[in-house]
């Protein structure tokens, strides 16, 4: 019995990219409309004035979604490669946020916005260049000292250890920075707004979104096109076979943590710029939501994590826009529950290993 393989034209990258952009725009537009209508029925905001508000909130959702996506990528990559839920990843993000505050505060002193564009760019690049390597190295260090010895231990052990590391990081931040909020220099001028359909979109939001998407595309390219990326994919799929092929598992895993740390650090920098404060327990809450995002999208799946991050961001924004912000955590956990019960592989499905 022969199977005739009909050659189908492989869609090239451009078409694929356009398709994705089209889908994304459609999703965002759908959210806009749904929120607009919800604002009318739930909050009683008349339709004419509701549209700009919905627009504003959609932009907010994209910003927070981008941050969650960046953090979720770290969770998903680590899980994909060593099947460990790195509880401490959220706190890595928190470290990035604090380091960014240290850097920008050290240079700029009193938190204030910088309108001089070249200087601003310099500061932003400097903040990223400062935080990303340090956080990445800390992440790799943690993996090396704490997770690696437990790689072959029964599953409970590394998981519990990760919780321990999370608490250690939180308490170190608590000790150093105190239990209150720390002001983060919002050097990106919040006054830069672009009027659009009655609402004003801050340039910062555009920056955040662009930065996140760029980093995600870079990561995607790295994983799909480079040798090291291929090594990561191979190790995630089958560590022993990869080792047989000459892939150094230790190095590859370290690389995974490095990249995850860098993304989390970028998220941290962006957080400080947008929200103006950092706290020692920033990691715990954001981490949980980002992890939900990773599971939602399909743990181990990079695109899934990014998608999940945005979805969670949109859901949270929806709840806040309608005045139900105190239920947003509840909502996120219910989603997690439903996803785990009905579709544990997530929206985009998983990429490796056997699951529940």
């Amino acid at each position, binding site marked *: 019995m022969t199977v005739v393989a009909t050659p189908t034209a492989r869609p090239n990258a451009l078409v694929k990219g356009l398709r994705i952009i089209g889908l994304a725009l459609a999703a965002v537009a759908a959210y806009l409309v749904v929120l607009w209508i919800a604002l009318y029925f739930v909050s009683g905001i008349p339709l004419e004035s509701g549209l700009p508000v919905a627009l504003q909130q959609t932009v907010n959702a994209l910003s927070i979604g981008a941050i969650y996506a960046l953090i979720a990528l770290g969770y998903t990559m680590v*899980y994909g490669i060593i*099947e*460990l*839920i790195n509880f401490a990843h959220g706190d890595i993000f928190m470290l990035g946020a604090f380091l960014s505050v240290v850097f920008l505060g050290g240079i700029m002193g009193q938190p204030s916005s910088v309108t001089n564009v070249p200087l601003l760019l310099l500061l932003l690049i400097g903040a990223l260049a400062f935080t990303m390597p340090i956080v990445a190295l800390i992440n790799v260090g943690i993996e090396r000292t*704490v997770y690696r*010895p*437990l790689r*072959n*231990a*029964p*599953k*409970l*052990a*590394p*998981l*519990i*250890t990760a*919780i*321990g*590391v*999370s*608490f*250690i990081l*939180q*308490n*170190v931040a*608590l*000790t150093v920075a105190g239990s209150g909020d720390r002001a983060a220099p919002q050097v990106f001028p919040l006054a830069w707004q672009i009027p659009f359909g009655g609402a004003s979109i801050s340039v910062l939001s555009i920056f955040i979104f662009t930065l996140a998407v760029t980093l995600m595309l870079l990561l995607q390219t790295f994983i799909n096109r480079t040798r090291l990326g291929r090594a990561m994919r191979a190790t995630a799929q089958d560590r022993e076979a990869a080792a047989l092929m000459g892939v150094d598992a230790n190095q590859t895993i370290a690389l995974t943590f490095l990249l995850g740390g860098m993304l989390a650090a970028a998220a941290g920098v962006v957080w400080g710029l947008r929200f103006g404060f950092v706290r020692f327990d920033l990691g*715990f809450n954001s981490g*949980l939501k980002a*992890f*939900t995002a990773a*599971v939602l999208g399909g743990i181990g799946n990079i695109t899934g994590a990014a998608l999940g991050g945005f979805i969670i961001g949109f859901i949270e924004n929806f709840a806040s826009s309608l005045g139900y912000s*105190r*239920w947003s*955590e*509840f909502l996120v*956990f*219910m989603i*997690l*529950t439903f996803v*785990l*019960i009905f579709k*544990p592989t997530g929206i985009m499905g998983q990429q490796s290993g056997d*699951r*529940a």
Partner: protein
Amino acid sequence: MTAAAQRMARGSSPSPRERIRDFAENHRSVTIIVSMVIVAALMIILPKFPPLNAIQREQSWFDAFANAGVFILLAMGLNVVVGLAGLLDLGYAAFFAIGAYTYAYSNSPYSGTDLPFLPMLVVGAAVAAVFGIALGAPTLRLRGDYLAIMTLGFGEIVPIVFLNLEPWTEGTNGIGGIFRPEPLPLIGPFSALTPFAYFILMLGIVTIAMILLYRLQDSRVGRAWNAIREDELAAAANGINTVITKLLAFALGATTAGLAGVFSASKLTIVSPDQFYFTVSFTVLAMVILGGMGNIWGVAAGALIVYLIQSVVLKQLNSIFEIINLPVISEINFTDYQFLLYGVALVLMMLFRPEGLFPSQRRRRELHVAEDLGGEPGSADEFGASAYEDVP
């Protein structure tokens, strides 16, 4: 193979220690009661003398022991879920909350009813067990890590629900003025000024809980838990109903949390959502890990030690170093670093001694299997039997 069978295989005569062990294994309940009486006697006598009575007053010690008892119950319950059945439950505080609120709903001015305490203990435990099944059911198909996250989610959801559903739960103010237990025979009345009464009550509850849990551990259910912890697939292949076994683990684990909740509510006289956040679940988990997963009296000892460290030792370190003036150490406020300590302890334990401080033999052998198979000689247990000889 039991220890006795091992020895028979070796052909050696039992040492006194081994004799006691055999006796303990064959007459569990008696051993527990006798041990608890001894422990109780120690707890009553020791605070009368230095150094303990220099640290704090006798009544304060009884109060500390009673409070520690809450955590001992929680740790023993979590031990069933994590240690015996191998299901990592990170939201254990939810059951604690349910037990506490159950008592609050039945014994406070809020509801207007005042029911007898001892039956309420059973009711609270039962309600918690029901929720144990309810919250455990969705997790049945999940593997270790996902299970952990889902239970973490539930552990977060329950206090949020209590917080937000204000018309029914008094929200953040919580339910106050909860009635204390009515005076019990031999123990006397309960009030804020009688920590001794609460202490004795807690001793009784812990003893009964221990007997119950040891019975379960030694029973078919307990063996089923061990089986699904070690290899779920093999267990199912051997005819163990994994669904029922897991649900039982959740239910019975939740039971002790319910007991702890009822006791805590009746002692503190107020329940509010902020008593039940993740830090509580984490603390109990730390106690179980430190104490020795799978070993009931081990986790009880672990819980007592951790609680005393938290409430007594850290503060004591502060006053000691105020007197001895050392350059850096005297500046430190040790109580600030409690959770840092837990985190470090957890990591170190997992790296070097995952079976805990007071391990059960079985778990120690399990957790060091990698070493054993790697051929590291000399991983002998405390009785001198080498792990290799145990392989059937």
